[in-house]
């Protein structure tokens, strides 16, 4: 769908006319990300992160396919094959670091993207499906990143595989056989490594498929915007190309500068040094932690230290960790306020920032050793996390008095319609 004032695709080039009348692919691209897609004119830089996430996925697929040309998924040689990439393969060191840090950048971008959605309530009607698909993408991303981290077969790889598949063993009755099925054995070994390689290759393409649906769903109502007021007239929008292609291009430039700084000057900053030790099934590193992007969820897992009624602490932790993400699926129905944007919701805004702090605290505790005071802090922070979604959000949205919304996007950008939008444009220089 698009707004009635969207530019129509009229190819002048005879070749494009020929193609368009047989397979309207050029038309499809023009209407999806070209001049035929009108977008609210007031999008701020928080709206750059979807494109950046898409770019990060392409980056991971390209570097990943290249790395797979040199990597050997066998427990005897996997670690050495990664060192072979680092030392012998032309530009191998760069490609390996690009892929590893690419995962970190992907998560930075996606977390920003998600919290943008939280603040501007981008999950509200009619955009629920976009949100639900997004949560699915996030779950797939986490599974993919986990399996990728196993492939170098270092200490963190091995013990990460053991602990994460161990999460499934907490399920009553079917748990232990399920873990054996996932591993293809009784502990991570060649069978596990081999299948993780296969699935790590497969899942990014599944993610790509879900992203196509995510963007498709987005194009039904069109982009949300910082006011949360829907598009009313043509003056509320500008064509995606060249306005947002240029703006996204600029954002991409900033992204690439940070990314290159990471890859070239601090490639191991976000990694764990123990993964430079080959996997040893007989010895667990004393301080085992997942990659930083899992820390908040890891803190929630570890926060449950005592049994709760008939549920053992281990199962409680696992349920809590998965629920921490599954609760996002219900967000469109937990937040019942008719106002979307946090800019016009004074009470909601305060709790939003509290949630940001809470997740940062959880992240910090997840990376810290499982000792006091971190355990207690993560218990409080985990409780608050669930409190935010299940109690605070529904209550706030029912008691809060939102601030007045602008009449339109145009008004929000240019001031009152009669004084700005409808008056003759002022000359740039008086």
């Amino acid at each position: 769908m698009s707004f009635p004032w969207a530019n129509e695709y009229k190819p002048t080039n005879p070749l494009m006319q020929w193609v368009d009348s047989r397979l309207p692919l050029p038309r499809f691209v023009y209407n999806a990300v070209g001049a035929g897609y009108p977008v609210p004119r007031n999008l701020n830089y928080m709206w750059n992160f979807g494109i950046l996430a898409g770019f990060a996925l392409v980056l991971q697929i390209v570097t990943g396919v290249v790395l797979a040309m040199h990597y050997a998924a066998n427990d005897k040689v996997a670690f050495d094959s990664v060192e072979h990439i680092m030392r012998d393969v032309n530009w191998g060191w760069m490609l390996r670091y690009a892929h590893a840090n690419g995962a970190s950048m992907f998560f930075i971008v996606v977390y920003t993207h998600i919290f943008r959605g939280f603040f501007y309530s981008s999950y509200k009607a009619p955009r629920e499906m976009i949100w639900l698909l997004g949560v699915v993408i996030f779950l797939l991303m986490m599974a993919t990143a986990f399996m990728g981290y196993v492939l170098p077969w270092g200490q963190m790889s091995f013990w990460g595989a053991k602990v994460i598949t161990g999460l499934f063993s907490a399920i009553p009755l079917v748990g232990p056989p399920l873990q054996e099925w996932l591993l293809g054995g009784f502990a991570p070994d060649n069978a596990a490594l081999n299948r993780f390689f296969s699935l790590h290759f497969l899942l990014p393409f599944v993610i790509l498929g879900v992203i196509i649906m995510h963007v498709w769903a987005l194009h039904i109502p069109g982009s949300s915007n910082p006011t949360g007021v829907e598009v009313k007239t043509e003056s509320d929008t500008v064509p995606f190309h060249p306005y947002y292609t240029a703006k996204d291009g600029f954002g991409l430039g900033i992204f690439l500068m940070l990314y290159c700084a990471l890859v070239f000057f601090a490639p191991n900053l976000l990694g764990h040094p123990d993964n430079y030790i080959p996997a040893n099934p007989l010895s667990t590193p004393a301080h085992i932690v997942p990659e930083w992007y899992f820390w908040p969820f890891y803190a929630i897992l570890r926060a449950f230290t005592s049994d709760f009624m008939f549920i053992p602490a281990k199962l409680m932790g696992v349920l809590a960790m998965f629920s921490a993400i599954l609760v996002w699926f219900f967000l469109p129905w937990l937040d019942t306020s008719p106002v979307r944007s946090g800019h016009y919701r004074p009470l909601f805004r305060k709790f939003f920032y509290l949630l940001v702090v809470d997740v940062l605290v959880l992240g910090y505790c997840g990376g810290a050793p499982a000792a006091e005071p971190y355990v207690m802090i993560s218990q409080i922070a985990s409780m608050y996390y669930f409190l935010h979604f299940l109690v605070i959000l529904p209550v706030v949205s029912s008691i809060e008095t939102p601030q007045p919304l602008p009449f339109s996007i145009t008004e929000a950008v240019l001031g009152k319609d009669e004084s700005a939008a409808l008056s003759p444009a002022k000359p740039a220089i008086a």
Partner: protein
Amino acid sequence: MASETRAPSGDVLAPDGERRRDFLYVATGAVAAAGAAAVVWPLINQMNPSADVLALASIDLDLSAVQEGQAVKVSWRGKPVFARHLTSAEVEMANKVDVKSLRDPQTLAERTKPGNEKWLITLGVCTHLGCVPLGAGEGEVRGDFGGYFCPCHGSHYDTAARVRKGPAPKNLEVPAYVFKTPTSVTIG
């Protein structure tokens, strides 16, 4: 027959309005579902442990060199096994505990073989999320209860390798094993 009713298509209808063709639909659907299940099952089952993994089922372990107070760590099915030669003090400590007060109540005698109560053979796999507890190696931390200590999430095990503190739900698992001679065991 005069009483026969027919659908507009000409199919003969049973008294309750069902056609014989409806049965064919159900039967065809059932065969298709069974066929799909038969295809899916091998696709799932291929991920279960393969014959070569299952073939690594048992190992022999020589205990003759393990002195009192020492433990050895061996690999079995890709997991570590701790074989500890308990000292008299450790046996005494383990027997002194009120079994009912434990999270996973078991006596030392239940966790060892009759006549070989000084040999404590357990998996070196923390029952929480599967890390290898410290305590089997020389000079490693053995936790608040003199047995094993898991560094991952801080579970403490006593001298009978029973869980005493931390998130682990169970005692360290005792694998199936038999003493072939007084100084050698077969595990698995």
